[in-house]
Each structure stands twice: as structure tokens, then as C-alpha cells.
């Protein structure tokens, strides 16, 4: 019914995906490619979280734990089985299996009784696991985490082409137009090494998983989930086993989260409690999904991209604003302290739950 206007949403998502596809050639530098890869990983994570939150109406605080299980699966496989791909795939599979089984167990215990138990129990279990992982330092490296090796083909030392590929550097554009920077500075060189291959592995996996989740949400399964979210009792009355559907989506979601974690581990070649587990990441994830828009996988794409960019730019903006008001309004300056960026995002989060429950994606869709 809102089809004509949803072109705007499609356009925004297409721009983001295109930018990610071309990221190594558009934004030179290690940091830019790193940010792009993180965005890809978190898109998968956020979209899988949205399967539960947006489609099934279940709040979980253990999603990052499942993410971490996939990541630690890869890390432990690399440490114990070696850096070759089959071992890492096995590790990712094992992490995913553990995540799915645990999700099913938590679901059986809590969703059967009251859906609200699920939120509380996942919070408790996730924090217990996070503590456990940082304590079992013999196995997990504790607080320091684990650094490990990935297949040669994906590491920076692997060179695929003798000559670098041409790329662009849009950041140099103002210098060329307004200053006297040479035209050549608009171009950059992109090395066709294992790091680039790793980036495209992450990117391609993201596309595949995103398409898979999109497919799932428009399938009969996704329709039933939404029916349950809208009216649990009616869905039950029509004859759907509400609990089974909920547990199923929890397991699927946990499995995909674990895969995202595995990708993240491959990209970072490191896992640690602060990087792949823990409550702060869970909070980030909630902000991404809710601000981006619950109930559509495209919301995750937008939310993650916005969040990752905001994290960098909002802090710069706040620092500038703080400098501007510091002399006259010291009280306001405290609130604009760059470290307080999370407070403003938190407020935005609350306001979006009240006023734009469909998030930015929902706004774009309805064209208002």
C-alpha cells in the first residue's frame, strides 16, 4: 500500500550497499575498510536480531552472546586446529551449534511460561557467560582475548596481483577544486592482497545472509511470526503453536548471529570479551535496530550504517558544540562532553520507541 514511496527506502539501502561494495576503492585507508567490514558484520547481526525483535516481538539480551560464540568458535579452532579454512569452518559450525542449542534451551525454559521471562533470563545468562569467558583464561585468553591466524589467502601478506588496482579518494576533492592539490591526489591505489579478499568474503557473506533473512521474513514462516507478534492469542486460536514458532525463530536468529561472529573473528583475527561479548555491545545493537527500524531487514542496514558513522561524527560534532558553549554555558557544556554521546543516542532511542516505532526505515517507507 505504501509501495510507491518505499522507493526512497530502496534507494537509501541500495546506496549503502553499493558504497559497501565499492568501499575499498572509494575510501582509501585501512581504517575505512575496517569500518566498512564492521558495518557488514553488524548488518548481519542487527538483521538477525530484528528477526526476533521486529518480526516475533521477542526481546533478547543474549544476542551478542550468540555472536561471541561464533567468534570464539573460529578463534579456538584456529588456535587448536591450525589456521586452515576447514578447521575454521568447523569452529564456526561448532560455535553456531552451541548457540542454537543454548537458544533452544533458554527458549524452552522461558518462552513456555511467559515471554517476558525471556528478556530477563537472556540478560542473566549472557552476563554469566561473559563473566565465565573472562575467567576461564586458560581456554579463552580471559580479558586479553585470543589473537590467532586465519588462512594465508585472507591475510595481508597474500598478494594476488603484482600491481595495485586503481581507486578513488573523494576526501581529496576539496583540495583539488578549491586548493592547488594535483589532480592525481584524487586517485588512490588499492592493493589486491588477502585483506581485500577477506573484505569481500565478509561483504559477500553479508549479502547472502541478508538475502536469506529477507527470504525468511516474506515466507509463510515470517508471516506467522508477525501474526503472533500482532496477536498472540489469536494466532494460538487459529492453531499455530506460538511457543514452537518463537523457539524456532530464536534458534535461527542465534545461529545467524553466531555466523556474524565468525565473520567478525575472521576479519579481526582477534576475539576478546570487550569486542565480541558484553553488555555495551548489546546496547549498541539495540540502538541500531530500534533507531534503524524494527520489523524490516532494511532497517538493520540503515541503523547500523548510521550508528557506525554517528559514533565517529557525533563525537566530533559534540566536541565542537561543547567548545562553542563552554564559556557561556558550562552546565550545557557538560552535557555536550563527547564521552556523553551515548546519552543523546539513548534519548533518541526512547523517542523513537514512542514516536517512530518503525524507525528510520519506517519513515522512509511511508515517505513522511
Amino acid at each position: 500500500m505504501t509501495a510507491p514511496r518505499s522507493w526512497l527506502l530502496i534507494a537509501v539501502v541500495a546506496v549503502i550497499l553499493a558504497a559497501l561494495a565499492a568501499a575499498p576503492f572509494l575510501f582509501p585507508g585501512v581504517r575505512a575498510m575496517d569500518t566498512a567490514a564492521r558495518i557488514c558484520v553488524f548488518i548481519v547481526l542487527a538483521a538477525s536480531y530484528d528477526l526476533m525483535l521486529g518480526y516475533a516481538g521477542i526481546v533478547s539480551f543474549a544476542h551478542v552472546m550468540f555472536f561471541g560464540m561464533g567468534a570464539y568458535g573460529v578463534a579456538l579452532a584456529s588456535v587448536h586446529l591450525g589456521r586452515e579454512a576447514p578447521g575454521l569452518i568447523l569452529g564456526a559450525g561448532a560455535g553456531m551449534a552451541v548457540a542454537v542449542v543454548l537458544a533452544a534451551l533458554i527458549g524452552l525454559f522461558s518462552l513456555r511460561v511467559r515471554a517476558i521471562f525471556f528478556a530477563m533470563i537472556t540478560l542473566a545468562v549472557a552476563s554469566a557467560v561473559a563473566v565465565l569467558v573472562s575467567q576461564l583464561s586458560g581456554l579463552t585468553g580471559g580479558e586479553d582475548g585470543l589473537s590467532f591466524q586465519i588462512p594465508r589467502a585472507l591475510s595481508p601478506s597474500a598478494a594476488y596481483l603484482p600491481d595495485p588496482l586503481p581507486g578513488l579518494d573523494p576526501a581529496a576533492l576539496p583540495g583539488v577544486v578549491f586548493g592547488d592539490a594535483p589532480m592525481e591526489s584524487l586517485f588512490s591505489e588499492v592493493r589486491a592482497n588477502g585483506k581485500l579478499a577477506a573484505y569481500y568474503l565478509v561483504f559477500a557473506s553479508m549479502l547472502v545472509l541478508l538475502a536469506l533473512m529477507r527470504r525468511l521474513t516474506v515466507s509463510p514462516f515470517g508471516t506467522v511470526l508477525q501474526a503472533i507478534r500482532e496477536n498472540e492469542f489469536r494466532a494460538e486460536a487459529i492453531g499455530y503453536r506460538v511457543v514452537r514458532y518463537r523457539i524456532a525463530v530464536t534458534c535461527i536468529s542465534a545461529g545467524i548471529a553466531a555466523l556474524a561472529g565468525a565473520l567478525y573473528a575472521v576479519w579481526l583475527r582477534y576475539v576478546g570479551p570487550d569486542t565480541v561479548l558484553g553488555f555495551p555491545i548489546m546496547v549498541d545493537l539495540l540502538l541500531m535496530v530500534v533507531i534503524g527500524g524494527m520489523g524490516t531487514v532494511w532497517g538493520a542496514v540503515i541503523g547500523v550504517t548510521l550508528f557506525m558513522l554517528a559514533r565517529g561524527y557525533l563525537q566530533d560534532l559534540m566536541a565542537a558544540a561543547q567548545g562553542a558553549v563552554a564559556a557561556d554555558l558550562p552546565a550545557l557544556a557538560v552535557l555536550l562532553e563527547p564521552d556523553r554521546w551515548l546519552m543523546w543516542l539513548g534519548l533518541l532511542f526512547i523517542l523513537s520507541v514512542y514516536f517512530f516505532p518503525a524507525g528510520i526505515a519506517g519513515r522512509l517507507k511511508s515517505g513522511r
Partner: protein
Amino acid sequence: MSDAAPAHAPRIERAGLSGRLRPLIPWLLVPAAILLGYLGIWAQASWPLLEPVLNEDGTLRTRVFDLAPFDVRLSSWLTLTVSGLAMGMMIFVMASGLTLVFGLMDVINFGHGAFVAIGAFTGITVLLAFPGLAGAESLAANLALVGLAALAAMAVTGLLGGLFERIIIRPVYGAHLKQILVTMGGLIVAEQMIHVVWGPSEIFIARPEMLKGALTFHGAAIETYRLMAVGLGLAIFLAIRAVLRHTTIGLIVRAGVQNGEMVEALGYRLRLVFVGVFIAGSALAGLGGVMWGLYQEVVTATMGAEIMVLVFIVVIIGGLGSVEGCFLGALLVGLTQNYVAFLEPKAALVSDIALMVLILMWRPEGMMSAGGRR
């Protein structure tokens, strides 16, 4: 004088011994946990003796009958029991409001931890403002100061609770998903506000002079402060129970937990009662925060979110809406945590999860689920 038809004889007359014991089982779990804790400590002391020994003739011999004496580590057990009870009481103080708020209006507040942290920071500020009273070697002066800190914390968190209910929670009555998200958002913002008001780092605090020491009892060192926490927690539990049982407001609250609609249909303004309970619960969370801060001797902005993990476990195993269940659940969690931390430090938090799993397998709605109609 009963002339009711026999077919309608009251069920209680037919209930057997097991029926009458059923409600008592949760109460028996606490002494059972204390006993189990002792057995665990004793077994650990005995463990090396259970390993087989090689006899001179080459056969193996176990020394099953050379177990550790029964009073081995009795003092450790005593110390752990008191600190487990103290911890349990503090968690109870923090959790009691949460469970009642849920029972009354089906509202789950994930931001409850914010009141714990803000209460702790407020109380600590008061304590630091009067170093003279804190350092005085007079129990009266120390207690007066702690009392003042507690009152200040309760006033601040009670007030904030009222605002939180009005601004954050009221617009999302009846919508669990939004409630969880919005109250979580409230927690994020509140934590950041703590940083704004009290600065980015944690604050260390020493207990007032006379609350620092320990009593020695049968060779066990028992901190005065823990005993005080046990006493205060017990007093608060008894006070809440008395209010619930013997006042009209308490009657309305208990009835409202079971069937809010009927309470309204009898002419009571349940919303108003709910706001009162929310404010009282927030104030209690603030008080719990002060107690917890003095117990840990450090306060951090994230302490609320951290303690919420235990609070949720307690509320779930107690049964949402039940103050008594919450009390027993808190004691069980506190004791388990302390015994296990002594026996195997890494398993402490996992043991609470295990406790929760066991109790939910036994009673899926928690030990003393109130109402249970939703």
C-alpha cells in the same frame, strides 16, 4: 454449623499433609541451602582423603572412613553464611519493588537498576559530605550518618521513580516490548547522567568507623556491617509484610496482584496505588544501592545494571509479584553465590543460573507465583 451441601465441603478439609506442607517448601529451601553449603565445604575439605591410597601390598585402599572432622572449616561456613544472608537481604531490598510493580500492573522495569546506582551515588555523596561523623568513633554518630545517607538516597530515588513512572512508563502500559525497550533506554540515559553529575570514574568509599570491624564468633570473623545489613533487610521484609497484611493499602495491593480489574470494579483507584508502589519500590532500590555501595566500598555507574542480573534471577525464581518469594529467592541466591564463590570462584554467577534452572524446572512460574492468571 456448616450446613453447606457436602458436595461443596471446602477443599482445605480434604487436603492432606503434603497439601499443607506445599506452601512451606520454599521456606525450607533456605535452611536446606545453608546445610548444603556446609556439606559442600566439608566435602571439599575431605576431598583429598577420598583419593585412593596405594597399600604396601600394592592394592588400592580408599580412606572413606578417614573423612575430615565435622567441625572442619566451621568458621568459614559461618562467615560465608552471614555474608550470603547479608547479600541476599540487600538484593531483596532492591528487588522487592520490582516484583510488586510487575504483579500490580504487569509492568517490567529494566531501568530499575538506575535507581540502585543513583541511590548509591546520592548516599555516598552524603557520607563524603560529613567526614567528621564518618570518622567519629561513636556508633550513634555513624548510624545517624548512614541513616541520613539512606534517607537522602530514598528521597532522591523515590522522586525520580515518580517521574520515571509518569514520563517513561505510563505511555507504554500494557505493551511489554515497548516497556522493555523504553526502560532500557531510561537505564542508558540514567547511567550517562550519573557520569554527568558525579564524573566519569568510580568512587571509593570507606565505611564509617564503627561499621568497619568484625566480631569473632567461634573462630569466625563476622563483619559488623554484614550483621547490620541482615538486620536491616529482615526489618524491611517484615515491615513490607506487615503493610501488605494489615493495612488497607496492602490489602488493595495484594488483591490487585491477583485481579486488578476486580479491584477497580470495587471502586479503588489502582493506578494511584500503583504509582505509590512504584515510588516506594524505587526508594527501596535506592536504599539497596546505598547498602550495596557500603558493602562493596565502591560505587560505579554500571553497578545498577550489574546487580540487575541477580535481581532478575531473584524475581524470576521467587515468582513475579510475590514479595515472600522474592525474599526467599534473594536469600537462596545470596547464599549460593557465597558458598560457590568459596568452593569454586569461577562458578559463582553460573551457579545462580543453575539455581534458577532448577527452580524453574520444579515450578515454571517461580516458587511463589502470585496471581498466575495472566
